[in-house]
């Protein structure tokens, strides 16, 4: 008998030692094994869908009760009083994330355009690799870095420090997304512009980038939305604030940190608000990113 192909050897070997090796028995066993393997794959996929259903289900069940106008417009109540909202945390999140986006977007988009339009050499490969590796740095470590870079020199925690941390976290996905989107612009656009005598910079700036604009905007917003859900890097940079504050050089409340504090607090009313906060955060982050992702896909498939 000729030895079977290398890959299928692993499956056939399962049968070899203890099933009798008449052709009929082997065929039956292979058929059965085939069904088992396929069924296991289907079950695995089902098992992956289950946690999402559970998480979203509990999130809605526990969070929707506290979802009212007051949650968005009122301030947190002092300890012991029930009610109140997270208005300051919602505004704080928008401010911290907004400033982070201002810091990260120009650099990230320029870097992405460079990689897509000029990125062929060793330098570009190194940039790509570094970007990918940087995206794996734990967010808590980035928080420690922002603490050392901003909090220590300033002498106090601040919204600015939180923005710096989030900006570092946003950078890799923005670079990656921009590069991908600029690459989608058909090569013929560039050739046409160059053939008309436009220099490289004008081709990129006036032909390629306008064509890629929608994609770049949506894809970058994805990165920004994702960063808005980060908690760890804000714990000791933006810290949190129970009062209304719009100053970026002071501690500022953010939604994720608020949820964390309220979830750990020994008051059921606070726990309930934490669930509501989590629901709002998921609606903000997940829905925005999903909508954007669908748009990106449409742009890509066009």
């Amino acid at each position, binding site marked *: 008998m000729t030895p079977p192909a290398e890959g299928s050897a692993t499956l056939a070997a399962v049968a070899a030692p203890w099933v009798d090796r008449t052709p009929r028995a082997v065929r039956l066993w292979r058929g059965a094994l*085939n069904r088992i393997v396929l069924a296991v*794959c289907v079950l695995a996929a089902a098992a992956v869908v289950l946690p999402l259903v559970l998480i979203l289900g509990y999130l809605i069940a526990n969070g929707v009760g506290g979802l009212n106008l007051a949650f968005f417009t009122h301030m947190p109540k002092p300890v012991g009083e029930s009610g109140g909202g997270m208005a300051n945390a919602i505004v704080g999140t928008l401010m911290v994330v907004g400033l982070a986006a201002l810091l990260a977007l120009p*650099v990230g988009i320029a870097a992405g355009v460079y990689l897509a339009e000029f990125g062929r050499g060793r330098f570009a490969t190194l*940039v790509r690799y570094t970007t990918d590796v940087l995206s*794996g740095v734990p967010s808590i470590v980035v928080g420690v870095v922002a603490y050392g870079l901003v909090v220590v020199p300033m002498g106090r925690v601040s919204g600015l420090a939180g923005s710096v941390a989030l900006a570092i976290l946003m950078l890799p996905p923005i670079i990656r997304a921009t590069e991908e989107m600029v690459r989608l612009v058909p090569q013929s656009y560039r050739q046409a512009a160059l053939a008309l005598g436009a*220099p490289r910079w004008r081709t990129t700036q006036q032909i390629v980038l306008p064509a890629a604009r929608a994609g770049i905007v949506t894809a970058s917003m994805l990165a920004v939305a994702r960063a808005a*859900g980060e908690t760890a890097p804000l714990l000791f940079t933006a810290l949190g604030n129970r009062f209304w504050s719009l100053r970026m050089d002071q501690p500022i409340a953010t939604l994720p940190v608020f949820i964390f504090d309220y979830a750990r607090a020994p008051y059921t009313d606070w726990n309930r608000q934490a669930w509501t906060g989590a629901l709002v955060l998921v609606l903000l982050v997940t829905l925005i990113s999903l909508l954007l992702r669908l748009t990106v896909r449409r742009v890509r498939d066009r």
Partner: protein
Amino acid sequence: MRQPLAPRRRGLTVDGVYRGALAAAAGVIFLVVALIVLEIARGAMPSIRTIGWGFLAQREWDPVADHYGALPYIYGTLVSSLIALVLAVPLGLGSAVFLAELAKGRVAAIVSFVIELLAAIPSIVYGIWGFFVLAPWLRNALEPWLVAHFGYLPLFRGTPFGIGMLNAGIVLAIMIIPTIVSISREVLLAIPRSLREASLALGATRAEAIVVTLDAAKPGILGSIVLALGRALGETMAVTMVIGNTNRISASLLDPSATMASVIANEFTEATGSLYLSALIQIALVLFGVTILVNALARALVWLTTGGRRDVAGAT
């Protein structure tokens, strides 16, 4: 701006300047990495000088006595990530095969959508769910059952708290499954169809053809698993909420523990002494070093299998 700036010196053209400016922006990434390394190294310096690297092997963590050892946190990080991998790898690979080889049309779209959704949920939300939903269930249902039936194993001895290593492992598994699925699926799709067709033509069953494909995709799949490991090692908020944050090494998965990331999250704001703070930053340094190595390895593996396709290699 109609007329581009005339070249002032030889070689300095608008094109050159434009390209240089963009390249400078790209170079910022190195600056960021350098800043991260410098800043953590500087913060950890006092601790490295005073305690040294023996810190990694010491069990005692006593801020009052100014004595710091990171071993319980390293243990907690490794074991919780290991539990996560044990749970997530079979499920993730099965789902990836399902998506790449079996599912079509609507079903595939729905499962992919769910996996993207899982990846988009902030980690604090996983933490809340693990704390308020999973923990009571573990405490009242799964853990007593494990103790009753497998209590003879040291792994399942002790009191069911609900909060602890097992809970952290399960939550981490849910969080890293999307990484394994999305990258493994792309890797599988990058394997030439002809390989599958050849196996089928030789009379292989579908399962056997899948095994052949898996065999060819091995490095990339390994890459996706290593990448998921990196994610699990550094995950902070969800773990902090469900692991119990107890500084001890216990063989039982039911016991509370702590990880490198969770101790930083918990104690950084309370760290009063400068050595205390520095010891925490030294933990961050170790965590950074480990995740960078793990990630560099993973990215290289995925790049190898997919021929450097950006959309796969850099996927999150």
